[in-house]
């Protein structure tokens, strides 16, 4: 017995039919868990042209294969779906307990399709799975939703994934919460849940999770935790959490300021980690995590577990907000109503710039932080100008202009690292399958914060390809990003939990396979290399301060680098994977044929 159970709960919200099905071992072997398994399950019978907010779209929840075990940072759950914000495949990952609890309930995955007639929640434990009414929770925030679901389920130990009013209102960048302190769902996963009338998923488990050799598993896990020093009392992610990055970004001149007009922010010391620590009352870890990145802060008006660096950048410096209290307030509201803080901040920044430039009056300007707090609520409930904000920067720019400074890629707003300060981040943003995302690859560590020259594309395509392959494996097998585990050690951890004897090469091939599977989903959804581009601001304007001052990042050089990226990936010059590449990676014949048919008929 090993940590892969082999069972998926199939839920059709339209008919109410729920059944347990087997997951083929081959899927676990080729795609492992989390991101990879979620992608594979989604591809099984989801037409890539499906309307994301229709009942035909699916929500696939998949645990890390190692979730439930003692491997640190393994209690992760991925949720994959077709994004209503971008139209690409999107998958996010959440910590807390949910990933492990699903294993203790006896499942590796849940697949939800259809649409419930009334607002409902899904309850599951080892003995039963039911769709239950959540009508009384309409419009209720995620915090209260969790409390009430636990009461309704009659069990305080239930782990809840809660959708908020933003998701119910189908805001395109709405997300979900769990245990009040962890969120998931860039790309509008909340909206997909909302379109299905699904208010929450409640999971309760009490079964055992097994590994092939317990003694060996305990020994290897212990050794590798120590080897990577993840419980080190001086590990920055523990001592400070992600806010430590504010000083890194400010000094490197790439901290988004005034909607990416600048890369340094005058008020950065009011919102950096040293400032956050002044009001920190506790540290918090996810289940099984030796690191403990979470920071519980008590602001003067609100408290929050956070803010993450991304929130400080996009809801702080980028909207000219130097108030720690206001950032805490905005973060707390976003977590409760269910809004992705990166996209929310980016939309507000766009609205501010449009207003200041006189291109369209959204009634808010840079630095108007009280209005920013109100705007977040208005977006969640689509009230007044909030209904516009809820569309996201891409649709707003289509409607009102300002496309050069609508800071998104494929509709997903760009996170807290100005690529003019670390050029490979731009390659990462455009090649990430779900849009402007920093999770597929994080080359800034090697560039602006490492040894490589940040202001060249030389060697960067190769860097990004390598990082993406290993990240995709890591987020599938998988552990949290904050454990910087190399592929060979990831292979060892996988071997003692799932079984077998895996190598670093096999691990990276799994990552490459998953990456390509997501890419062909996107191609079949209608994308190609023409969509792999950055907003005009990055190529047309130079930063005026910090190390990247006056350095141009020309579009021509970027496009040349993307051609190199396609070549290294084994794709054609339009960014489409070749059939040979897919076959060489072991992608199943049926997907190769499906893709081949699509290319021939489009």
């Amino acid at each position, binding site marked *: 017995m090993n940590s892969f159970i082999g069972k998926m709960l199939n839920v059709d919200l339209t008919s109410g039919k729920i059944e347990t099905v087997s997951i083929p071992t081959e899927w676990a072997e080729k795609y492992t868990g989390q991101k990879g398994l979620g992608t594979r399950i989604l591809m099984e019978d989801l037409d890539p042209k499906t309307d994301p907010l229709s009942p035909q779209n699916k929500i696939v929840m998949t645990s890390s294969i190692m979730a*439930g*075990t*003692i491997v*640190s940072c393994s209690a992760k759950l991925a949720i994959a779906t077709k994004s209503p914000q971008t139209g690409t495949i999107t998958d996010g990952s959440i910590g807390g307990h949910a990933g492990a609890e699903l294993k*203790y309930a006896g499942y590796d995955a849940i697949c939800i399709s259809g649409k419930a007639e009334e607002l409902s929640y899904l309850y599951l434990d080892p003995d039963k799975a039911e769709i239950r009414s959540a009508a009384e929770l309409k419009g209720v925030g995620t*915090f209260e939703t969790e*409390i009430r679901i636990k009461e309704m389920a009659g069990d305080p130990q239930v782990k809840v994934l809660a959708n908020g009013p933003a998701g119910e209102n189908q805001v395109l960048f709405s997300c979900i919460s769990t*245990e*009040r*302190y962890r969120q998931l769902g860039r790309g509008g996963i909340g909206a997909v849940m909302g379109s299905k009338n699904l208010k929450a998923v409640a999971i309760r488990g*009490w*079964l*055992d*999770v*097994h*590994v092939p050799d*317990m003694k060996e*598993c*305990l020994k290897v896990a*212990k050794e590798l*935790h120590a080897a990577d020093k*993840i*419980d080190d*009392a001086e590990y920055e992610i523990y001592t400070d959490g992600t806010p430590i990055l504010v000083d890194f970004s400010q000094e490197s001149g790439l901290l988004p300021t005034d909607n990416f007009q600048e890369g340094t922010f005058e008020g950065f010391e009011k919102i950096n980690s040293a400032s956050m620590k002044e009001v920190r*009352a*506790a*540290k*918090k*870890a*996810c*289940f*099984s*995590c*030796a*690191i*403990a990145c*979470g920071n*519980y802060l*008590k602001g003067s008006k609100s*408290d929050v*577990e956070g803010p993450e660096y991304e929130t400080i950048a996009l809801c702080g410096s980028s909207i000219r907000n130097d108030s720690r209290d206001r950032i805490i307030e905005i973060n707390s509201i976003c977590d409760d109503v269910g809004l992705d803080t990166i996209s929310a901040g980016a939309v507000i920044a766009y609205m501010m710039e449009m207003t200041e430039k006189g291109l369209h009056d959204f009634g808010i300007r840079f630095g108007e932080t009280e209005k920013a707090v109100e705007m977040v609520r208005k977006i969640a409930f689509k009230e007044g100008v909030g209904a516009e904000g809820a569309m996201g920067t891409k649709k707003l720019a289509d409607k009102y202009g300002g496309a050069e400074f609508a800071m998104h890629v494929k509709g997903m707003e760009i996170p807290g690292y100005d690529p003019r300060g670390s050029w490979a981040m731009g390659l990462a943003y455009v090649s990430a399958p779900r849009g402007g995302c920093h999770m597929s690859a994080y080359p800034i560590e090697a560039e602006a914060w490492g040894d490589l020259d940040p202001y060249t594309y030389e060697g960067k395509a190769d860097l990004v390809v390598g990082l993406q392959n290993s990240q995709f494996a890591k987020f599938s097998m998988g552990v949290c990003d904050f454990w910087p585990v190399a592929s060979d050690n990831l292979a060892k951890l996988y071997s003692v939990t799932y079984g077998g004897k895996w190598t670093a090469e096999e691990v990276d091939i799994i990552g490459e396979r998953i990456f390509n599977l997501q890419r062909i989903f996107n191609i079949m959804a209608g994308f190609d290399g023409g969509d792999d581009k950055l907003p005009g601001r990055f190529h047309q304007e130079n930063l005026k301060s910090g190390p990247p001052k006056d350095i141009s990042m020309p579009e021509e050089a970027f496009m040349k680098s993307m051609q190199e990226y396609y070549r290294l990936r084994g794709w054609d010059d339009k960014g489409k994977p070749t059939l040979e590449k897919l076959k060489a990676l072991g992608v199943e014949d049926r997907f190769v044929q499906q893709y081949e048919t699509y290319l021939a008929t489009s």
Partner: protein
Amino acid sequence: MPLRVKKATCTGCKLCQLACSGWHERCFNPEKARINVEHDYNEKGIHIGIHFCNQCNKCIDTCPENAISSNGKWILVDRNLCIGCKTCSKTCPLDAVRYDSEGKSVICDLCEGEPQCIDWCPKEVIYFREKKTQAGRETT
């Protein structure tokens, strides 16, 4: 010689529970661990609770089958005598009793001297308390 905890340092990772169930029950299941942690973020803030046997010995006195005893250093449950009646659990003031796959009680026995929870805790929350004797201090 019961365990002690620096509660405020606990981050709620529950690696102690995973180590306990892994070591004793040869599976990973926090429900079967002999130490139990709550670390919840609610409307009042962060609530931390850490439950484990502190050797008050009430279970020994109330077990109807005399299945529980102490060797002076830790609690012992005789699995051959235990009938799974759960009286010890109902008596325990700290909710420190759990059950194995046969429903028999499991109570912390300090891993017979080398607690796995202490070994695995990443933040050094759990430690041994020095035992005071009438003559003075005696380290355990």
